[in-house]
């Protein structure tokens, strides 16, 4: 048993130190006046990348340590110790966490390098890298948390750093609003998460993952019969917020207001994946309640379908990818809900998470490369077109990502998606149908984007003048493209990593599943070819099916509904409280009391005339009354 606590600290410390160092030294300062321009322009990126490289290296070492044998970590210090509640700062170190950390580090590294090119010339580039590093730190914190409270702490840190990153261009009102929306929607999910933690603590007496697991094992009778359904579902609420599942999915498309590397980071490997990772981490809780698993599976499946449908009529290239992310996350959540604890548990979900991390960040970064070519001025695919001639590498990378996403045989997404479909086939026929239909939509909207934006003729003046991006942008693209291709093979290690020696080949993906999935893929592709390959000037769906277009364009009206809800219910309640405060409590209550006192005072004042005769009269009258009583008694 090796104690690798130190190693974990080093992985975590890397990005945190980077953030602190950048904030402290990357500024104009009399101490290094000659270097000030350098410090202001490029030092932040160098520092961030260097520290992240360090973390990646240590994560690799941790991977090695986990591979070679049993490792253990020791709690660092006692965080809270009050009454029955005891929370230590301790860490989880196993295949799951190290694997996840590795994905986070590698993808972040690509994105960091890419950001150097993408954010070139931005005045706040150091601030950007500081925030980015802090974000990675919080994410790694979630990955390694050893108990629910720690996880919640880092969970919220991810929330706030995403708030900062999405609102990075705070001068744009839309960006600031999107940041706030992300934070508050996440907070609503966290409300459930927090209650879930309290309930789990209430039932099992601990918040520590190991302790809870042991408790569940030791007391099977006390946790049977749905005792854990509500706690599991409440904790799932947290994942619904972070992984943007129905009905809390609304923040994710808006989060596209952030710079593209941020979208890639948030949408591919980190923030949204945190929800799925968390479900896997607490899988022992989730698996203890079949009812909760059903709910989870259905929410995942519905999110997958709904967002794939919405993606079919979006025009902003990043928004298409955002809805695609929602849809893929739906697959993962569904996989968690469908998993078979005895066979390979949460592995299908994690497998898809890891391949998705590669190809989705690839897609986002390719889209970013296009946006660079348009000088950050255009994201509408109907203004692009014909990019493949001028930007061959970007187009190739986008296509690779697309094929991986749509599950083209041989690429990483194929394996992970087949695994999930196979699982669904075995566990729940309805969800299998739903997932297969979703796969068809996926191939439709992705090929739509490819045909409209990259193929055909330029649709605008700007599209004719694009240039291929520099190598600092393309390098990460190529690296991610390679990972997207090979990420699914066992020799790459990812699938093997997750399940140990068993391998995922045992996963029950029969020929039927394969055929149906391929059929869906081809149908989607064929539809996209019919509609879009001929190079229409306008979306034919819009002209031929205006009604359908309007519904999808409005995303089924979720945003409007929530806006109305916030405006009328919450705003109304707030205004009501304000009114009650002003008129009922302060007005009637307080002034009323004062008024009664004053009136009483005024009445008594009537007797205080100041006239000697009156006083004498009253004195005499009083005397008479008293005498009368004394005499009659």
């Amino acid at each position: 048993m090796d104690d690798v606590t130190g190693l974990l600290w080093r992985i975590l410390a890397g990005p945190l130190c980077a953030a602190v160092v950048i904030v402290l030294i990357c500024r104009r300062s009399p101490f290094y006046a000659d270097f000030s321009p350098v410090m202001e322009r490029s030092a932040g990126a160098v520092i961030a990348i260097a520290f992240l490289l360090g973390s990646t290296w240590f994560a690799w070492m941790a991977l090695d340590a986990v591979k070679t044998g049993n490792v253990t970590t020791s709690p660092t210090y006692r965080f809270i110790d009050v009454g029955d509640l005891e929370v230590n700062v301790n860490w989880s170190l196993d295949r799951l966490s190290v694997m996840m950390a590795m994905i986070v580090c590698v993808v972040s590294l690509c994105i960091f390098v890419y950001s150097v090119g993408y954010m070139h010339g931005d005045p706040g580039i150091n601030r950007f890298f500081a925030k980015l590093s802090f974000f990675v730190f919080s994410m790694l914190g979630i990955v390694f948390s050893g108990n629910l409270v720690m996880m919640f702490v880092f969970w919220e840190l991810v929330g706030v750093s995403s708030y900062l990153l999405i609102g990075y261009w705070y001068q744009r009102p839309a960006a600031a609003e999107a940041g706030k929306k992300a934070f508050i929607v996440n907070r609503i999910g966290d409300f459930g998460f927090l209650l879930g933690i309290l309930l789990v603590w209430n039932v099992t007496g601990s918040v520590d993952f190991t302790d809870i697991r042991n408790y569940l094992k030791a007391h099977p009778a006390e946790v049977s019969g749905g005792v854990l359904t509500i706690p599991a579902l409440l904790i799932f609420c947290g994942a619904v917020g972070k992984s943007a599942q129905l009905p809390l999915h609304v923040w994710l498309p808006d989060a596209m207001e952030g710079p593209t590397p941020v979208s890639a980071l948030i949408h591919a490997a980190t923030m949204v994946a945190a929800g799925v990772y968390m479900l896997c981490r607490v899988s022992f809780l989730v698996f203890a309640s079949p009812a909760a698993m059903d709910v989870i599976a259905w929410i995942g499946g519905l999110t997958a379908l709904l967002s794939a449908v919405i993606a079919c009529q979006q025009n902003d290239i990043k928004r298409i990818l955002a809805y695609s992310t929602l849809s893929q996350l739906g697959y993962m959540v569904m996989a968690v809900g469908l998993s078979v604890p005895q066979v390979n548990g949460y592995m299908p979900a994690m497998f898809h998470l890891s391949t998705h991390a590669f190809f989705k960040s690839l897609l986002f970064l390719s889209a970013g490369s296009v946006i660079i070519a348009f000088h950050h001025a255009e994201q509408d695919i109907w203004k692009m077109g014909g990019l493949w001639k001028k930007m061959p590498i970007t187009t190739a990378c986008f296509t690779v990502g697309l094929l991986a996403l749509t599950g083209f045989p041989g690429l990483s997404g194929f394996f992970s998606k087949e695994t999930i479909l196979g699982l669904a086939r075995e566990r729940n026929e309805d969800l299998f149908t739903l997932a297969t239909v979703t796969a068809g939509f996926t191939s439709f909207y992705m090929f739509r984007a490819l045909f409209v934006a990259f193929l055909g003729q330029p649709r605008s003046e700007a599209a004719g003048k694009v240039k291929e991006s520099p190598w600092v942008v393309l390098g990460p693209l190529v690296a991610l493209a390679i990972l997207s291709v090979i990420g699914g093979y066992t020799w790459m290690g990812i699938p093997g990593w997750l399940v140990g020696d068993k391998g995922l080949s045992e996963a029950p993906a029969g020929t039927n599943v394969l055929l149906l999935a391929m059929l869906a893929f081809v149908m989607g592709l064929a539809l996209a070819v019919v509609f879009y390959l001929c190079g229409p000037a306008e979306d034919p769906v819009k002209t031929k099916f205006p009604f359908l277009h309007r519904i999808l364009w409005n995303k089924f009206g979720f945003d409007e509904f929530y806006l109305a809800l916030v405006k009328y219910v919450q705003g109304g309640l707030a205004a009501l409280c304000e009114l009650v405060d002003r008129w009922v409590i302060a007005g009637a209550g307080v002034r009323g009391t004062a008024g009664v006192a004053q009136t009483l005072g005024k009445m008594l004042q009537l007797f205080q005339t100041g006239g000697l005769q009156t006083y004498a009269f009253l004195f005499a009258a009083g005397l008479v009354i008293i005498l009368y009583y004394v005499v009659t008694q």
Partner: protein
Amino acid sequence: MTVPNHNDSFPILSVLIFSPLAAAVVTAAIRSENLLRWWTLLATTAIALFSLPLYGRFDCTTADFQFVEHASWIPALKINYSLGVDGISLLLVLLTTLIMPLCVLCSWRYIQTRAKEFMICLLIMETAMIGVFCALDFILFFVFWEAMLIPMALLIGIWGGPRRIYASLKFFIYTMSGSVLLLVAIIALHLKVGSFSIPDMMGRGFAPEFQCWIFLAFFISFAIKVPMFPFHTWLPAAHVEAPTAGSVLLASILLKMGTYGFLRFSLPITPHATHVFMPYILCLSVVAILYGGLTALAQNDLKKLVAYSSVSHMGFATLGIFALNMAGVEGAILQMINHGVTTGALFIIVGIIYERLHTRDLGEAAGLGKYMPVFAMFVGVFSLSSLAFPGTNSFIGEFLVLCGGFAVSKTMVVCAVPGVVIAAAYMLRMLQKVAWGGANNPDQSHLTDLNVREILTLTPLLVFVFWIGLQPQPFTRVMHASVQRLLEQVK
């Protein structure tokens, strides 16, 4: 007295209580305004440093009162001068001594008229506040309790805003009416026990009906101070009119008197009644949490916003206290400290904005981040702390309170937790407006960022935000024994 003094014989508490008074006497003799400020700052800082040994030499293993002093004061009425602190009051005393120098610093430029009288008021306040937390005799307690009232009313009434007289009067009448009931309760207890010693009255097992009446008298008095819904309307008025230092003192220390009263008197003296009234008070706390939050959401005046958020935060404190278990009570005490730190800082921040812009309107005080980046950083941290962000102090407090509450009533906690979401909404709304501002905010380019004095004012509070948030053990450690005994008394 129940326990002998086992620390040492140096009367540290008396020195702490009366040195501000002595400093006030010296202040009266100082002519130069500048010297005056420096002297008050020096005196309060020295007192703050002098109070540190209290923590260092505090014995965490015992629930008894420590640093006890005892002297006969009015023998004919068996009134004694007796002082002491335990795990419940220790942190509050330290919070008081910490906040005072910051109050002086934040009034440095803000107070231009009658600076001498202002400083004297502040120092007298300090004497009275420390006295309240240390007094172990009911009459002594009451003397300090009332003594606090006058300088505070003066602070609002002389150095306050346009409606200062109204606000000052409202504050005075509210608190006074509470005090009267408190006095009645004290006399009633004296008639039963025959002494005014507070420790003597704890755990006596009075008749249930008697307990209920005493509890109610206590309750109204303390609920006004906290302030609990629906006794809270004096608070926004007082805050809006009070000068920055007044608001800080009010929020950081004075509101704690109410919750301290619950812990020191209501729970141990009337345990039966506590159990009888517990459900209602839990309800009122939850209402305060939600109501304060929602009302804060509707405010455009920064001070009102923070004031209503106080109602919400103090709702968490009362929720924890009346959960009557370890996690709840310790969380509540921590929440009291946290609220003192965070809300105090937020009022200082509002004061800084007001000094620069002469407005507290959220629309006009918008978009400061670009020209005041350091300031924006402070606003960000304290807003996060106020919305109970993990890693900051309030998270620990609220989490413990929710844990404690959960053990008593799940429904209550389920109702209270949306308060956390509302807190995010109103704090982010404020942060976003102030730091980044909307598209049509006024031009703020003439503003200068924080100067050294202002940074020094906020930094100690910043340190505590993260210290309590990341390593709360040193703070909860000192409470354990006392809270344990308190819970035994109330059982």
